[in-house]
């Protein structure tokens, strides 16, 4: 492409300049008119052109553009139309009906339709849903597959060893339903609308707005549209609009970008552990009828992950008329080898004889990936801030050994709604009763009881790995159910755990056979993801020179491997040097890069609304 071609004289200049000490600041990007260069400007071509990193007030291309935004008022704005956000919306509407109060409730969802960005297994514990809608069955909630059988396996390279699943163990699934969560969420969206909530898909909340003195949140602004890839305004440029609200509920899912910003601004992690994560992959398979076992749930651990890498798999057989099964794989993002590729571990896993037996004769019809939170109670931030609160996975409520978080997300949404309703009624700025309500609820009880299982993986400095974790669960947890008086720590952030490439062994992954395993790009195509190519990449870097200087030279560019969509590529330039190319169009909004980047240089911000994957009942 035009950008990667450097003339030989410029290449020589780059090479010479590399030997000089450079002044590179976090925000030292020249935004003067094209052609003018300043001495401090880094010599690699500019990667990050996004307005969040380039002040348009100082950019002459934006001189004559009217930047005023239309503003609208609502009582409550909810960012994110997933299980947590929509439960909050529905509960608020129910409370209004019960108490005779009136509120304007607005849900902003960046996907083109409600449910299109939902990616989950999912084996749903219905208790969150039942509390919200006791009549969910009459209302037609798409829970069609009660769990009929439940197994847990330990995979070695050739064998699948069944492990006992005793009642009371977190992986025991009696009473739960296998669902296509995207469809459940779409149904929740319909319920919200029928209750009078305004749901706006295709609208991304891009910026948090603050009161004059900056102390409290007063609302959000939606994304601008019509900015060209180089950061200049297009003819179609239009400013986003502002929603001013009394209370803002952030329900963006794991590692939301506004949540990240708010957590930093209000220091919501003070005195708590940082969040830890996993990346979850899922494929939807149309099985051969003779291998289809509707209602069957299988979980497992082991091959091909080495014992030092946390992870596991699931296979859920749906019963919705056709022989569909969800096949998924989670890799803990606290892995240390930068050569590890979670995507390839997943593809390799499907070749295990036990798994291949289920999938042979079938056809893959869907693929997706999303980061999920694994920190449990240790990593829950403070949940409220002046003007709003965090619900669901954005705060981090997945019960990791149970591999379930939707029920907790829905309950937290309901509790937040109650606190928000109360706060609006009493004029309180912060819905402070929410956190206490959550601590007194079954969500906290459940998360507290399993708090030591995930970190037990690191027992004895991780030398026992998965065996240590399972031993702890079987030997200690089964009896104490979390009543043990100690709480294990996660031992730091995921990105800090990545070791330099020179200390690790490269991994050799087998080529896909295109029957059971597939290559990355054809998998991404199945997500139907798309972004307007002519917009600034929404994967922004704080410092454009860091990928070359640190990520590549120290860690061998791990973003090439942990991104499940092939966004990050190091392309070779004419002079032999390598440059990071960001294929933002491929992004499937999983947030893994923002989490695992060892230099924490990548900041995922929302692209234009309506973009990203178009998952169908995932």
């Amino acid at each position: 492409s035009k950008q990667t071609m450097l003339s030989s004289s410029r290449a020589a200049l780059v090479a010479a300049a590399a030997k000089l000490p450079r002044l590179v600041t976090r925000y030292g990007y020249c935004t003067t008119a094209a052609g003018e260069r300043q001495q401090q400007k880094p010599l690699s071509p500019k990667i990050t052109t996004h307005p969040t990193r380039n002040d348009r007030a100082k950019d002459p291309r934006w001189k004559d553009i009217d930047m005023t935004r239309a503003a609208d008022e609502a009582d409550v704005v909810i960012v994110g139309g997933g299980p947590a956000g929509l439960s909050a919306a529905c509960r608020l509407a129910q409370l209004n009906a019960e108490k005779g109060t009136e509120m304007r409730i607005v849900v902003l969802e960046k996907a083109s339709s409600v449910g299109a960005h939902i990616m989950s297994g999912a084996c749903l514990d219905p208790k969150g849903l039942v509390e919200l809608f006791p009549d969910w069955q009459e209302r037609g909630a798409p829970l069609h597959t009660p769990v009929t059988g439940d197994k847990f396996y330990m995979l070695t390279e050739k064998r699948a060893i069944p492990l006992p699943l005793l009642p009371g163990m977190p992986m025991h699934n009696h009473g739960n339903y296998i669902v296509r969560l995207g469809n459940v969420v779409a149904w929740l969206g319909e319920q919200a609308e029928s209750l009078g909530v305004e749901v706006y898909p295709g609208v991304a909340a891009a910026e948090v707005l603050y009161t004059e003195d900056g102390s409290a949140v007063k609302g959000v602004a939606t994304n601008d549209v019509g900015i060209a890839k180089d950061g200049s305004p297009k003819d179609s440029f239009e400013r986003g609009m502002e929603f001013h609200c009394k209370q803002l509920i952030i329900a963006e899912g794991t590692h939301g970008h506004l949540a990240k910003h708010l957590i930093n601004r209000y220091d919501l992690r003070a005195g708590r552990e940082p969040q830890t994560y996993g990346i979850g992959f899922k494929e939807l398979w149309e099985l051969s009828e003779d291998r289809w076992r509707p209602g069957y749930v299988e979980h497992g651990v082991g091959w091909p992950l080495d014992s030092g890498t946390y992870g596991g798999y699931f296979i859920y057989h749906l019963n919705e008329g056709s022989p569909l099964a969800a096949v998924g794989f989670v890799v803990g993002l606290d892995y240390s080898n930068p050569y590890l590729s979670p995507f390839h571990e997943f593809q390799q896993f499907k070749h295990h004889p036990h798994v291949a037996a289920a999938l042979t004769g079938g056809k893959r019809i869907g693929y997706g990936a999303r980061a999920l939170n694994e920190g449990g109670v240790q990593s829950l931030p403070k949940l409220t801030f002046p003007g709003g609160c965090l619900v669901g996975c954005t705060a981090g409520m997945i019960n990791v050994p149970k591999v379930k978080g939707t029920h907790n997300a829905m309950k937290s949404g309901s509790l937040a709604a109650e606190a928000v309703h109360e706060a609006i009624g009493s004029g309180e700025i912060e819905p402070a009763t929410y956190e206490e309500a959550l601590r007194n609820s079954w969500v906290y009880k459940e998360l507290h009881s399993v708090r030591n299982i995930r970190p037990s993986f690191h027992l004895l400095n991780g030398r026992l790995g998965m065996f240590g974790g399972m031993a702890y669960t079987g030997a200690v947890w089964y009896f104490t159910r979390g009543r043990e008086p100690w709480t294990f720590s996660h031992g730091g952030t995921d990105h800090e755990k990545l070791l330099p490439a020179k200390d690790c062994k490269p991994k050799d992954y087998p080529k896909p056979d295109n029957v059971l395993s597939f290559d990355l790009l054809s998998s991404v195509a199945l997500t139907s993801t798309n972004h307007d190519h002519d917009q600034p990449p929404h994967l922004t870097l704080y410092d454009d020179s860091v990928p070359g200087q640190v990520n590549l030279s120290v860690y061998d560019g791990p973003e090439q491997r942990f991104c499940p969509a092939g966004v990050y590529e190091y392309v070779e330039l004419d002079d032999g040097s390598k440059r990071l190319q960001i294929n933002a169009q491929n992004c499937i909004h999983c947030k893994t890069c923002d989490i695992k980047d060892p230099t924490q240089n990548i900041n995922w911000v929302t692209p234009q609304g309506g973009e990203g994957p178009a998952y169908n009942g995932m």
Partner: protein
Amino acid sequence: YIHIINKADMAASKGLKILVGCKRVIDYAVKVRVKPDRSGVVTEGVKHSMNPFDEIAVEEAVRMKEKKLAGEAVAISVGPPQSQETLRTALAMGIDRAIHVEIPLAQLEKLQPIHVSKLLAKVCESEKPDLVILGKQAIDDDCNQTGQMLAALLDWPQATFASKIEPSQDSKQLRVTREVDGGLETIDVSVPAVVTSDLRLNEPRYATLPNIMKAKKKPLAKMSPDQLGVDLQPRQEVISVEDPPVRKAGAKVESVEDLVGKLREKGLVK
């Protein structure tokens, strides 16, 4: 019917009345999948959006309104209940009102351009637009027929594959630049006329939230094919829909002699 607008009319009148066709199709970025029974493609739960060429048609109509060439722009969609979402997008882009000709699901899969053009022709009889702008083709069937059939049914002039629409020199007609195989062709057409939009006609604006909210209040009328007196009997039967054949690996040859030899082997050269 034919009615002629003269220069005085164009200047003094409230401008042309434009009817714009919009079709709800599977979004262009979606990976399309053939149904296991090979009767069609999977549409259930799949992301749909307005046909890209129709977005361009809508944009052109709105621009003509902004330039005061047009006074009123009406959007029309023939399709299932969800086509209303497509019409709401058109309204959010600046169209004044919308008409939805609702097709029952049973007949939806067998709907063809001949039916759509007949339905549109009937609507034209009552709406009496001066200009109908349609997308040149829909990205699901790639037929490229509706505009042309509509013009024939109405006995109106047609200017297809338009990359530019402007008033003619004497302002009595429309000057349309068309993209043809040999390059560009410019023709003058008298109104009323049918124009179909090609890719380079314009770049459509985004339907932003304030406009989406305003569009909720714009009128959207519903009609049925029965009301319009059009029979939807299919003229064609789809026998099967298949995946395109998997591309087989090619072979690299080292020299011209090699190439000729291989061609001979395959009997392609004597």
